[in-house]
Structures are given as C-alpha cells and as structure tokens.
C-alpha cells in the first residue's frame, strides 16, 4: 500500500498498531513554539497587545476568576487522582512520546500553579503535592504545551471523572491571552472573522465572484442551473459553512454537493457575506466573549435575510459550537421555523432527503473508491446529530453507504467516541506546528493504513474543514496522495443523479474521485 519515503530519523512513521505506547522522551517537544500573535490582533480581540508587566499577578487572579465562573475548570483541577487512565489516550503523546503531552501532565502544568496559590496543601507543602510558583519558565511551558493540545476530548471519554483536558487547555489559553500572550494563528483568524465575517478575510465582492464561478462549474457539469446564492433575502435556509468550502480542496467539492442537494430538494437557500464563516476560533482560545461575538453575526445574518432555517456545512468544531453552544451564545431563535432543528447539520438535511427517497443515486459512480470514514472529534465528542444519542456516528455512515458500494470502518477503538484526532484541530492547523501535526496524525494514519492493507481502502471521508486540510497536507507524508481525503458531500454529489440531468453513456469515472461526468 503506502510507501513511506520519509527520512528514517524523526520522520513520520506507522506504529505497530494505533495504540502502541511510546517510550517516554522527556522534553521531546519542548522547543516547539507556535508563532505569537501580532499585538494588533490581540487588541482586536480585547486583550493586551503584549505581555503586561504584572502578568504574574493578573494570571493568578484569572485562575481564581475562572474557577468561580466555570464549574468544569474548578472541579477538574481538584478531582484528578493521577490514576493514569488518560496517559496513553492522546494522539500527540502517542506520536511524540513527550510526557507533557499526556493529558494529565498537560493539565498538571496549570494544576500545579492552581495548587500553589489556591489550595492549603500547595500553599504550605508545595513539594508534597507538586505545586509550583508561576514563573516565566512556567508561562513559556504553558504556551508551548497548551498549543500542543487539539482540544479533541478523547481523554475525557476515558477519565473516570470525565476530566476534559480541552477545558483546561481553553482556560490556559484564555489566561495567557488575558496577560497579552496570544497565538498568531488563532488570534489573527478571529480578528479577521470579527472584521470581515470569515477567517480568510475574503470580502463580499470576492466571495460573490467565487460563488459565481462555482455556479458555472455546476452548470457545465450538469447542464442545470444550480445556484449558490449569496445574500438573498427571503430564502428559506441560511447556509453557514466554513470559508475553506469556498476555496480549498476537497472542501469546495463538498459545497458543490450541498448546492446539488438543496437544488434537488427544491428549497431556497443562501450564503451570507456578513456571516460567511462557520468556524468559530473563539472556542479554541476559550474566550466566551469572542465566541459570542462571532456567533451573534450568524444570528444577525439570519434576521437580516429573513430566513426560516439555519443549516451548517461540514465543519467539526463549528458544529460543536452550533449544536452545543449557539442557542446559549446567540439564542433564543424564536424567529426561525421551530419545525426544524436549530441549527441543522447538512448531514441531517441530506439524510432526511435520502430517507424520503428524494435523492436518486448511482452508487457505481463511486466504485473506483474504497472508502472509510474519519469521525471528527468535535462532531463525535462535542455534538450530536439526528436528534438521538449517537446519531453523529450513524448519519454520515448511512449517507456514505447510500452513495458508495465499498465502505469499510477502521478499528472500532479509533472511531466513534474513541476517534483519534486528525492532528490539526484546536487552532494548531498552522505550518509552524507541522512537526507536531505530522506526528500527532500517526495513530489515525496507522488505523487508516490497517484498512488500506486489509480491505484495499483508498480514500478517507470527513466532515470537518480542519480534518480535510490537515489530511491533505499530512497524508502525503505517510505515502498517500493528497486527494485521498474527501468531503462527504463530494461523494454525495458524484453519485447523485439530478432530476433533469442527461447523462452520457459509457463515461468512465476518473481515478481521483471527483465527479466528472459529461453532460450532453
């Protein structure tokens, strides 16, 4: 299958199995420092531009404030018994062997400081309970290792108390931002989204031009006038999708898929230029206020356009924010049609259509693909789907099986609620962290390689913009083509026979999984 033509030393490699526990390599990743944010981006987000003079005092006070404002933070700092259950659950630990990437050790970076200033034992007997002063070295260590957590929550599944390292990591980033220590990738993106409405900083004019180009592509492919409307007042549905869907591969093919499904469903829909972003990086930096500001843009767009429903495109953490937080952050949504879930996932929409028998598939068009599905962590462990427990696992698989003949699941302990992160989530999808991203992908890549060898699986489908970008960068390092990663709605689109679409006989599908039928 995959040919590993990477450097022997330190390069990416498959593990014996996805759960192989590495030897501990202290300090292996201690020098990996993600770029710091430009002062302007920090201030755009309401934080000090640079590290403030009394940072120590402010950071300690912030720990106390968060403990009072956030039950999870308080309870999780107190409850850990160091049982070790989580120590082999983080993909970054499995991939790097750095012990500070074990979830409990990552929590302890902050817990040790909390204990020093807020607990009896830590104040009086720091050596006994591993408490330590907040020094500059500790702050730098926070910065490096809290930007080596993708907030995927796999550890929280296995903790006997449900301790969620993502909560600690978000709080740590919030504390660091409060003293003026922001990360470039996250803060720059949030600043753009707050200013322009999407993470790319793509203005409405450019967005309109892009969507018009895509409409032309669709017409060329199908001979039908399939629209991707922008800012159309009175449409039934507002589509909120990650801006990567407008420009990146394989994301775009997913967007074309939504357009086809909406067209086939006969609903009116629109994208908004004001809220042209599903992703909400406010979550990654643990900032309720920033997350709320970005969410309110969606509400505003829905009100301004007078839509009845909101549907989200394929984006993992966006779906967590949408499903779990949106009602809190920007609700109540009394003005929308209460007969539909608010918000709804495109997968729920398409699944409904399939159940109603309104989508006509020719599965054989995907026969050149042997497929598996990657459960994105924020969808799997941070959200739901379909209105029942576990729907987020079934719906995508049912949709995929409706449009593909060859579907195989990976090792059950690497899917569903136990899924391994792609290695690029949580605000780490930046080139300066590429080393971590490649290593952190190794459990997933190993599980993928297993089904590739066992079942001849050729492609991986996902419903997360970050996963898609990460895999298209990382899979080549593991010997797979960059287009081995597909959008779920890309597969829907390529198998979907549109009403009124005339199909030429004997069109051999191409090997890259992109629908290329010629229409007469």
């Amino acid at each position, binding site marked *: 299958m995959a040919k590993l033509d990477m450097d022997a030393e330190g390069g990416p490699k498959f593990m014996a199995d996805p759960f192989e526990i590495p*030897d*501990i390599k202290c300090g292996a990743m201690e020098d990996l420092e993600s770029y710091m944010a430009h002062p302007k981006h920090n201030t755009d987000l309401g934080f000090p531009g640079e590290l403030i003079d009394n940072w120590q005092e402010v950071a300690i006070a912030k720990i106390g404030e968060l*403990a*009072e*404002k*956030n*039950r*999870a933070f*308080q*309870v*999780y700092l*107190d*409850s*850990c*018994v*160091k*049982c*070790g*259950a*989580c*120590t082999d*659950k983080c993909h970054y630990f499995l991939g790097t062997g750095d012990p500070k990437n*074990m979830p*409990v*050790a990552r929590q302890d970076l902050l817990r040790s400081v909390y204990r020093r200033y807020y*607990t*009896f034992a830590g104040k009086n007997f720091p*050596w*006994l*309970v*591993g408490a330590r002063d907040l020094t500059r070295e500790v702050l730098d260590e926070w910065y490096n290792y809290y930007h080596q957590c993708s907030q995927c*929550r796999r550890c*929280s*599944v*296995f*903790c*006997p*108390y*449900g*301790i*969620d390292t993502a*909560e600690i990591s978000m709080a740590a980033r919030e504390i660091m931002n409060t003293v003026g220590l922001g990360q470039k990738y996250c803060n720059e993106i949030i600043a753009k989204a707050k200013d322009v409405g999407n993470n790319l900083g793509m203005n409405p004019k450019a967005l309109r031009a892009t969507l018009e180009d895509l409409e032309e592509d669709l017409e060329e492919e199908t001979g039908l006038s399939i629209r991707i409307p922008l800012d159309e007042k009175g449409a039934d549905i507002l589509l909120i999708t990650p801006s990567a869907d407008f420009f990146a591969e394989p994301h775009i093919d997913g967007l074309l898929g939504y357009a086809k499904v909406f067209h086939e469903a006969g609903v009116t829909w629109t994208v908004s230029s004001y809220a042209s972003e599903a992703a909400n990086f406010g979550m990654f930096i643990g900032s*309720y*206020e920033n997350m709320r500001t970005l969410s309110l843009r969606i509400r505003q767009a829905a009100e301004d356009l007078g839509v009845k429903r909101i549907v989200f495109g394929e984006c993992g953490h966006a779906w967590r924010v949408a499903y*779990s*937080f949106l*009602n*809190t952050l920007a*609700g109540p949504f009394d003005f929308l049609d209460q007969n539909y*879930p608010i918000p709804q996932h495109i997968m729920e929409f398409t699944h409904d259509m399939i159940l109603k028998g309104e989508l006509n598939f020719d599965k054989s068009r995907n026969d050149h693909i042997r497929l598996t599905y990657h459960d994105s962590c924020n969808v*799997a*462990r*941070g959200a*739901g789907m379909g209105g*029942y*427990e*576990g729907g*987020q*696992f079934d719906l995508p698989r049912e949709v995929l099986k409706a449009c593909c003949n060859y579907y195989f699941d990976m090792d059950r302990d690497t899917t569903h*609620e136990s899924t391994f992160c792609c290695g690029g989530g949580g605000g780490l999808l930046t080139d300066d962290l590429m080393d971590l991203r490649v290593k952190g992908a190794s459990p997933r890549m190993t599980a993928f390689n297993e089904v590739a060898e066992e079942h001849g699986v050729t492609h991986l489908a996902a419903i997360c913009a970050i996963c898609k970008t990460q895999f298209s960068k990382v899979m080549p390092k593991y010997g797979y083509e960059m287009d081995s990663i597909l959008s779920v709605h890309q597969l829907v689109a390529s198998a979907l026979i549109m009403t009124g679409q005339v199909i030429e006989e004997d069109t051999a599908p191409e090997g890259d999984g992109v629908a290329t039928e010629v229409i007469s």
Partner: protein
Amino acid sequence: MGGIDVTAVLYAFLFYIATFLLVFGTGMKIRRYAKAPAPLKIPTMPAPRTLKGVYFRMFREVVLFESLFKSNKWIWLFGYLFHLGMLVVLLRHIRYFTFNIWWWVELVQPFGIYASYLMIIGLIGLLVRRFTVERVRYITSPSDYLMLLLLIGIAGSGMLMKFVLPTDIIMVKGFFLGLMRFQINDLPSSPILLVHLGSVAFLMIIFPISKLLHGPGIFFSPTRYQIDNSREKRHIVPWAKKLEE
C-alpha cells in the same frame, strides 16, 4: 479503672475535630462546586438526552467505573477491588456506631472480612503500578504515594487487629457510642488500634483538601452530568446573561 484516660480524651478531641473538618470542609467544597456555574453545555458525547439517562450514566460511572473500565483494565481492576472492598469494610464498621446492630449490618459482617483482602490487594496493585509503570510514575507526586500508604496503613492495622492481635472491640464500641453522646469513655490501650484510629482521623481531615475530592467531584463533572439537549432547551448562566444586557 479510675482516673482520666488521657489517650481517650486526646482521641475523642481528634475525632471531633476530624469529623468537623470532614463535614464542614467537604461541605464548603461542595458548595463551591454547586455555586460555580457551567457556562456551556459540554457533556462528553454521545450523552443521554434525558435526565433519567443522566442518572443511568452517573450510576454506571459511580458504581461500575465505566469510563475507567473502557480505559485501562488493570487500573479498573485494582481501583475497583479497593473501592468495593472499602465500601463493604465501612458498612461492617457501622456496628461501632449503633447500639443495636442493624440486621443488614449483621449480614455484612462475614463479607467485610473478605472485603479487607480485596481492599488491600487493590491498594497494593495501585501502589505497584504507580512505581512500575513509567507513565504513571512520571505523573506521581509524593502525596500520591503517601495517600496509598496511608490507606494501606489503615487497612493493614485493621486486619492485624482482626486476624492477629485482637483488641477489645466492645470497649471501642463504647468509646464511639460515647462520643456520639458527648461523653468520653475509655479506649483499649492497644498501639495498633491507636495507629488505626489515628490514620482514619488523619484521612478524614485531609479529605476536603486533597484529591479525595474526586468523590464529590464526579457528581459535579459537566461532561458526565449534563443532558444532551442544547438545541431544544436554552442553557444560560447569570454572568453570561449579563452580557446580553
């Protein structure tokens, strides 16, 4: 006997203080957990969609250690043996605090003896793991070892009195029944008993300021107690509500 049993007086005060600190300290902590709002819905999915479902999930966590079982069979086995053993042993000890022994406490008595074996096996297993597994050793602080040693000391001294050097348990019962009525009765002058009782009192004292808080903590863990109904029911906490004004 005649005269004042100084040891009994000391231990009486020790237990009054320990009980006060255990109840008051843990109560304060629980109050703190209860008062801190959970601003967002963060149940680890898939999560129950009804309150009944949450009760069931919590039951499985607390009674069966479900997540731990999924995670690591060895930790689960040793942890479970220890906690289960301790529970039965504690139930067995109820007889020291009631004048007439309740029927079901009577029933538990023989099981309590076997349970002490489970408890000590579990504790030793956890201790051995702590220094033999590299990852676990890395995350261990001195207090983590000491906590296990303290519990082993309590279980060990108790078993020693049961199996090797019996003490006058009627007198011990008289001491505790007395404490409950605010009178100080004599205590057998057995060093093992004093070690046993002293360690128990110490454990009670450190309960609210140590990792033993995982006991109440689990009930306040949002990833475990929250219901998956965020789309259907709006969840908002007071400090977040203020942002809307």
